[in-house]
């Protein structure tokens, strides 16, 4: 994913989530770096073939 897209996402997301603008600006570079890393990992998972019938594994213990 393009770095510019991640930066734009972080700025928009910070506004949507209500993160104070000063905090978002001061820490933007490290948050962008971490989100870029997650994006790369997410891309690896996107490449895995998953049938639509496969349900997400979440906690449900009886």
């Amino acid at each position, binding site marked *: 994913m393009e770095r510019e897209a991640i930066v734009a996402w972080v700025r928009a997301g910070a506004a949507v989530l209500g993160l104070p603008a000063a905090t978002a600006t001061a820490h933007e570079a490290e948050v962008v770096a971490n989100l870029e890393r997650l994006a790369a990992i997410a891309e690896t998972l996107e490449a895995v073939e998953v049938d639509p019938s*496969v349900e997400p594994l979440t906690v449900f213990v009886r």
Partner: protein
Amino acid sequence: MSPSSDAAPSAVESIRACLERIGRLDPQVNAFTAVLAERALNRAAAVDAARAAGEASVGPLAGVPFAVKNLFDVAGLVTLAGSRVERERPGAAPAAVDATAITRLEAAGAILVGALNMDEYAYGFTTENTHYGPTRNPHDLTRIAGGSSGGSGAAVAAGFVPITLGTDTNGSIRVPSSLCGVFGLRPTFGRLSRGGSFPFVSSLDTIGPFARSVRDLVLAYDAMQGADARDPGCAQRPREPVAAALGHDPVSNLDGLRIGRLGGWFEDMATPEAVAVVDTAVAALMQAVAVDRVEWPDAEIGRCAAFIVSAIEGGALHLDDLRHRYDAMEPHSRARFMAGALAPAAWVHRAQRVRRLYVERVDALFADHDVLLAPAVPVVAPTVGDDWIEIRGRRYPSRPSMGLLTQPVSCAGLPVVAAPIVRAGLPIALQVIAAPWREDHALRVAAALEQMGVAAAPVAAAFA
């Protein structure tokens, strides 16, 4: 005093000695964030009174001191979870009741002496806690103890207490067990109650014990078993105690176990010295049973799924503090939490679906094997403050990468014993991995390695 020792001094004497040792030596290690002298001595007096009255029910852990990672609720203490935020939260109240695990250990006679340092909110593998200082490795005080349950590993390695409790989401028991050279158990997901513990990633979190012997590990594990309405993720299973199954001759007890060693990812992402601990264990076990090579399916995919789920669940959990108290959060992890909070929901949904496929493929390995072996960490303990580790000529960021070999295993929710292998130099542990609900298999192999003298957890030399 160890629960396995025959000597039984008065509990009050034993606890006084334990408290004195912690007070004198812990400033070098920084394992404890709270010491509960009054509570412990009162409890010890009660144990002595029960013994004097001839009560048969003092329990298998009577008088044994233990300590817990500071994300467990302890009545009368604010549950820090390694954070400054919880300590300073307006209206922060001390816990009203103990965590279930503490209650159960005390019911077995054990005595809580304190709370232990950790990575903030359990998001880390190094316990370089900015608010409470780093926990140092008793085997080399310039090095990290591992994390996130670093205080739990270090307190056992330094001989402060024989048993501690930690939590393991992605490796937070196995990494400090390995770097500090002590035994650790991450049980099957859902086996032990997390009631009264501060969560990190509820779909991956487990709790478990650390100890200097397999027998002590088992005594603590057995005492904590059982369903618990306080934890919706705790399975409604009957208790399955392991102590009797260990027997008096663990090596002969290996008969019938099908054991494999993991290649591929578990060798490629480890230094030669980490792979060598598996060589040592396999050579010893092959005197009693066959060991073949096994390829774990899609280890990297499992790690990716765990990474995404952890970041996004963790980020969502701490969203309000990210909004309002970002500057008070741990500089080593707050940007990771924030990135997780900002990540698209589609990523975690995908990770959870991939995880289901992954778990099915991993579970299939246990049709032909009972136990699988792999290194627990890629390298020995790095120096406090190191940002990078090197594996086979490639550099990796140290803080997330200490879990390279543990995350693929916990993503499948399997039980694992971390068994420290005897070697020259700094400790490294072996992961002894079993099928779901078969902690007994992993503990049997660890006990055999201990009996052979291949696995051991002596008190660190500087503290012996």
